[in-house]
């Protein structure tokens, strides 16, 4: 695993120091590529803009995620909290590509918003800034990465005792103060992770800029993609990718440092605000002070998560061939029509083959890895579990070009095989994580009990361990399959002349809108959601265990 992952990355680093010529890659080492990156002011400008967007998206995402997570954890109860969490999870799961595409149909020049504005005679011609620009990229990315940020913050808040919040109210703190001074500091780790995660994801994303950014929305990921795939200049793309990565790490480190340095002044400021806020808010009537703001805010955010996908669903049934209001009439025509397009069958075959390979190999690697993680203790254990997360910490673009250059170097034919390898890198850790979580969740005494009653280690494995982890294995395999079927960021680099459904759909979507894309998008979302639902049911059953065994 480590070799497959680290090898290409190391190779990619060396590529960044090599020359490129017409024949391909020249000998190195040279700093030419880096010089080229920084000599072009356009490159530097785009890098800085990308960084700006990444950080802005991360800030917006983290703030919204905090509000949503706070409401889910502390302000909504029972069924409502479960439904809200379910919506967040479903939004995070439903196809990434389709959710990006959804915003294209809303913000596009002839998209929903512009045509609505024109119909209402509010504007005479389509508003350009809505589409093809950093505004639409920002809105789309904030939407796309809100679920994952929310889940990270929710899991951090899970550790906080809800009685802390009650105690804070009991001691006279209002809702704002409780959220900012009791909840936020305790969820600090999760908030920081959510920020860093969304910053990395957003600034390395090239699908969103290509789909909704247009000519005025160039970002680094798109440049890297172009260098590698269109120009075939791997050293240039590698240098650009690593330059930007270094910039991003530098930026995140600076932010972390600033946060640390500002802790004391911030605390002083907070105390000052506290003192005056108490005096000011004393005049607010009880009935208003007692109202929760986070609940309506959470409702708005949930609507933000649901509505764009609903637009895709609705317009997949619209008989008009352009996207926009008014709704012409109901049709199912687009569903079969998209599947008849050139390349669909091949892409579907590719998707299925890659997903199956990735899941089978991923399980074969992931399950033993889970046992190793579970058994390893101390430094070895933490090292192993860090390794498991590594493929997720590496931006998809980087993984993509790393494998691409490695395949090039080894003379491997790009296509389903290489793509399967990339997907194994993503599925195996997932299996390892889920199964090791299951193993950790089990009482180790259960295995001792089996041995105590005379079972040999092999018998314990067969009669106790495997039956207990099987639902987790199947659940993880399903999640891995759904992930593989939807993966585009890395696949796009490694699939070569072959294709998978997301890659094919991406190509279709870039060519212009077509209601058939909506239809396929709906099918993809429904497919991933269905797979996840089955996985969720299976994983839940492992927790409750209603297994019966007649004697």
């Amino acid at each position, binding site marked *: 695993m480590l070799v497959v992952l680290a090898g290409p990355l190391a190779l990619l680093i060396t590529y960044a120091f090599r020359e490129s010529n017409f024949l391909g890659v020249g000998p190195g080492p040279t700093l030419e590529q880096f010089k080229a990156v920084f000599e072009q002011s356009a490159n530097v400008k785009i890098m800085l803009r990308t960084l700006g967007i990444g950080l802005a998206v991360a800030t917006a995402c983290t703030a919204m995620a905090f509000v949503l997570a706070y409401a889910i954890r502390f302000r909504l109860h029972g069924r409502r909290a479960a439904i809200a969490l379910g919506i967040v999870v479903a939004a995070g799961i439903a196809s990434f590509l389709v959710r990006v595409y959804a915003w294209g149909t809303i913000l596009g020049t002839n998209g929903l918003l512009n045509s609505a504005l024109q119909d209402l005679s509010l504007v005479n011609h389509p508003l350009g800034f809505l589409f093809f620009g950093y505004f639409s990229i920002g809105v789309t990315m904030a939407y796309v990465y809100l679920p994952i940020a929310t889940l990270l913050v929710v899991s951090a808040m899970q550790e906080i005792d809800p009685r802390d919040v009650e105690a804070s109210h009991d001691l006279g703190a209002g809702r704002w103060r409780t959220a900012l001074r009791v909840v936020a500091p305790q969820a600090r780790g999760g908030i920081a992770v959510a920020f860093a995660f969304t910053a990395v994801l957003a600034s390395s994303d090239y699908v969103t800029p290509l789909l909704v950014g247009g000519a005025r929305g160039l970002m680094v990921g798109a440049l890297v993609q172009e260098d590698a795939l269109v120009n075939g200049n791997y050293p240039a793309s590698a240098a650009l990718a690593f330059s930007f990565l270094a910039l991003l790490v530098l930026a995140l480190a600076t932010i972390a440092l600033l946060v640390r340095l500002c802790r004391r002044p911030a605390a002083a400021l907070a105390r000052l605000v506290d003192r005056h806020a108490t005096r000011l808010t004393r005049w607010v009537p009880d009935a208003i002070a007692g109202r929760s703001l986070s609940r309506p805010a959470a409702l708005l955010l949930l609507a933000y998560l649901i509505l764009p996908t609903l637009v895709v669903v609705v317009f997949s049934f619209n008989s008009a061939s352009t996207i926009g209001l008014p709704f012409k009439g109901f049709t199912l025509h687009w569903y079969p029509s998209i599947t008849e397009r050139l390349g669909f069958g091949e892409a579907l075959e590719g998707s299925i083959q890659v997903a199956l390979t990735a899941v089978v190999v991923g399980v074969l690697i992931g399950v033993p890895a889970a046992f190793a993680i579970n058994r390893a203790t101390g430094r070895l254990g933490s090292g192993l579990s860090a390794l498991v997360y590594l493929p997720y910490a590496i931006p998809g673009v980087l993984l993509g070009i790393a494998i691409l250059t490695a395949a090039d170097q080894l003379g491997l034919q790009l296509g389903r095989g290489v793509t399967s390898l990339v997907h194994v890198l993503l599925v195996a850790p997932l299996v390892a994580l889920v199964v090791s979580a299951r193993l950790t969740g089990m*009482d180790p*005494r*259960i295995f*001792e*009990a*089996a*041995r*105590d*009653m*005379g*079972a*040999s280690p092999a*018998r314990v494995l067969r*009669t*106790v361990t495997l*039956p*207990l982890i099987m639902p987790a294995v199947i659940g993880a395999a399903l999640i891995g399959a759904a992930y593989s079927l939807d993966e585009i960021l890395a696949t796009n680099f490694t699939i070569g002349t072959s294709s998978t459904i997301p890659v094919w759909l991406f190509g279709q979507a870039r060519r212009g809108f077509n209601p058939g894309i909506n239809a396929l998008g709906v099918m993809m979302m429904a497919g991933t959601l269905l797979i996840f639902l089955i996985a969720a049911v299976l994983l839940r059953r492992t927790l*409750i*265990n*209603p*297994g*019966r*065994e*007649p*004697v």
Partner: protein
Amino acid sequence: MPGGIHATTADGPAPIPFLRLSGVTKRFDETQVLRSTDLEIAQGEFFTLLGPSGCGKTTLLRILSGFESASSGEVRFRGKDLGRTPAERRPFNMVFQSYALFPHMSVAGNVAYGLRTKGAGREEIRERVRGILELVHLPDAGPRPVSELSGGQQQRVALARALVNEPEMLLLDEPLGALDLKLRKFLQDELRSIQRRLGTTFIYVTHDQEEALAMSHRIALMNAGEVVQVGGPREIYEQPQSRFVAEFIGEANVLACKVLAAGRNEAEVVLDGGGACTLRKYGDARLVPTDPALAVVRPEHLQIGGAEPLLKGVVRQNVFLGTHCRYDVEVDGQIVRVAGSTAGAPAEGAVEICLVPGRGVVVPDEPASAVVQQAGRQGGSAAEDADDA
């Protein structure tokens, strides 16, 4: 029935003991969790390892079960060294604190597990599972999933799952620790009667001294990785050999005193700020005249008023406890607890405290144990909630 702690040097070859631990120790990295331990346990005994959290009692049990191996020393079962025998080959079964029931099996599946492992026939398994479930009063629970059972029922299933294998020895690791007080009391009686009926040797780990007193034939009281005293419940309660034992078991006033004269089984002492009296003495500790020592007196061995007043003090509090009441009497800044009758008018103000003749024990001077300070003092059962690490 149970034999003494120390093997008696009888004439002829000594009989092979049922279970014998000699010099057993356990280290985890730098921590010595078990100091050299010698114990002998007779067949059919209900033997309890009692002590505060982290005293090493669970470690000792796990060494017996085979889940931990001793760092040194040996465990002999019927004369055979168990050092190299893995857990699955030992003729013992264990009831785990967390029950450790197999969540993917029914009650009957759990109970039958050990029998299946041994390759018993279907009919035999069915019969024995039915029988053992009746014994633990769950005759109809067989087909139910274990997750549907209450804590008390799960505990019974765990017991049945172990007992059905007819082990030579049943090891119980705080089996009642997770249950509420009422259920615990009820199951204590039941465990006790099952043990007496089957005659199986029980090794029982608990931190609840009341539980240990109520159920055991013999108790080994442990502290800081060491067995500090072994004896029957009555002996442990009435004849403490150290301050720790006196304070861990039941309630005790510990009063500083000075030795006047010491014999083999008793000593004459004078209490600091009080009178002289004769107290019992147990164990091997030597007491020398004029040395400081500690008088250990249970509240029920003191009374307010009497012929020979030992201490003088002021009643600070009178607590009604149903069967009796308890006076908290301040003597020289120390609170002395005295049991009193609930009949008649309660004593108030300045009082004299007397010792019930023939009661009270003297033990060597020793600082109070932090563990007992925390747990033992408050009615004796506060330690029950602490989890054994």
